[in-house]
């Protein structure tokens, strides 16, 4: 069955006819064309599809799109402003927190959720906040350094 899904996506109100069985990742990538959110494992294991739902990180591959009714969804596309990267994106760029880049958007969204709640996290807190995100390239050290570099800076 389809129903009208009305939500706040990256700060803009949207309404779309969405099937009950459509996953948030498919809604984002196929219906709205926001392909920044990546499909990694597609089964809840890797964190590549992390987006923010009412400010909390969730996995778009395990979330039914219609469950976002009247809620706030944020994807990586919402972070930059006027074509400029935000503090966390800039830090990943400068500190080499990204290599192939596949995990990067998930890392940044998980890191973003952390920095909003806790602007000056300890290394342990950063590791814990990113513990659901797998990276096959960097060895994680540069990713943690990137979040540390962004911490304490204005968004």
């Amino acid at each position, binding site marked *: *069955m389809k129903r009208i899904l009305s939500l706040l996506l990256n700060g803009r109100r949207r309404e779309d006819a969405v099937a*009950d*069985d459509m*996953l948030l990742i498919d809604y984002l990538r196929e219906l709205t064309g926001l392909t920044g959110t990546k499909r990694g*494992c*597609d*089964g*809840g*294991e890797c*964190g590549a599809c*992390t987006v923010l*739902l009412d400010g*909390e*990180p*969730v*996995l778009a*591959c*395990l*979330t*039914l799109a*219609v*469950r976002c009714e009247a809620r706030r969804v944020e994807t990586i596309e919402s972070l930059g402003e006027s074509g400029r990267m935000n503090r966390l994106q800039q830090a990943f760029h400068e500190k080499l927190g990204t290599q192939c880049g596949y995990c990067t958007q998930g890392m940044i969204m*998980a890191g973003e*959720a952390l920095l909003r709640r806790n602007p000056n996290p300890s290394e342990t807190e950063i590791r*814990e*906040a990113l*513990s*659901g*995100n*797998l990276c096959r390239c960097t060895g994680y050290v540069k990713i943690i350094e990137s979040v540390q570099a962004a911490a304490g800076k204005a968004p």
Partner: protein
Amino acid sequence: MQVLTDFVLRHPASIAEAAELLAGPGARALAGGTDLIANMRHGLERPKMLVDLSAIAEMGALRWAGAGVTIGANVTIACLARDTRIIGELPAVAQAARSIAGPGHRSAATVGGNLCLDTRCVYYNQSEAWRRSNGYCLKRMGDVCHVAPQGKHCHAAYSGDLAPALLSLDAEVEIAMPRSTRRAPLAELYRDDGARHLNLERGEFVTAVHLPAPLPGTRMAYRKSRARGAIDFPLAGVAVALAASAGRIEFLRVALTGTNTRPLLVDGTREFSGQMIGGALLEKLGKLVQNQVSPMRTTVTASNYRRQVASALAQRLVKELGLAT
């Protein structure tokens, strides 16, 4: 990964309405979906109707009554892990919650879903193609158990992290059914069958967990062993609640997960009351745990390792908590 099969999604606003819907054929409760949607995407579940419990407001609260607490089934694992009173007064519950999956799961995952999550097995939690090429198994669509081929019993392991912490603290669950509710000790929610591990009839579902005020002087902890430090189910998880003074046990309760088809409250720990915490007691405790767990070849990690680790974790926690000053 498989796309989801066609289902009807309903959003009841009350417990009574949800119970009516769940009494229908092929209906399934949907909470955070972090277990159910993943399993549906593996082709392990094909419900005709999903009954989304998230709109039922009365299931979403954490209510304290003195030092006891009622935790609604819709309370998320992230909320539980972050709640300052839970962290301060019921640390084992907060530790268990924090150890569940990853942050992206915990913000959606719920207490009810965690208590009811499906049992797991390395021959079961696989893609449709993987299972088909292996002739499926008893738990779903097949007629052989690859873990114990001579038997007709599924040994898939219960692997929820909250249950042992709650069991060690004498939790009760509130169960709704069409037109009424009942309350039962948490242990009675489970049965010894990996293919059907919950004592819930059609239309029944968990609405809340009640934890009584801990007995005076209770110290508690939960610890799990897993293949990697995050996003992983327990190979064995142990919760201990005890009171001790001057190195002597006053009472002791030990509960386990990951080792059997249901979470287990270790039987026989009453005998330890009055005994000194030392080598002899720990050795007896280790044996008690080893005798009651029955890890089978349901993970790639050897079952004997899981048996040993359950016993070692129990000993370690009793020592740490019992001798802490």
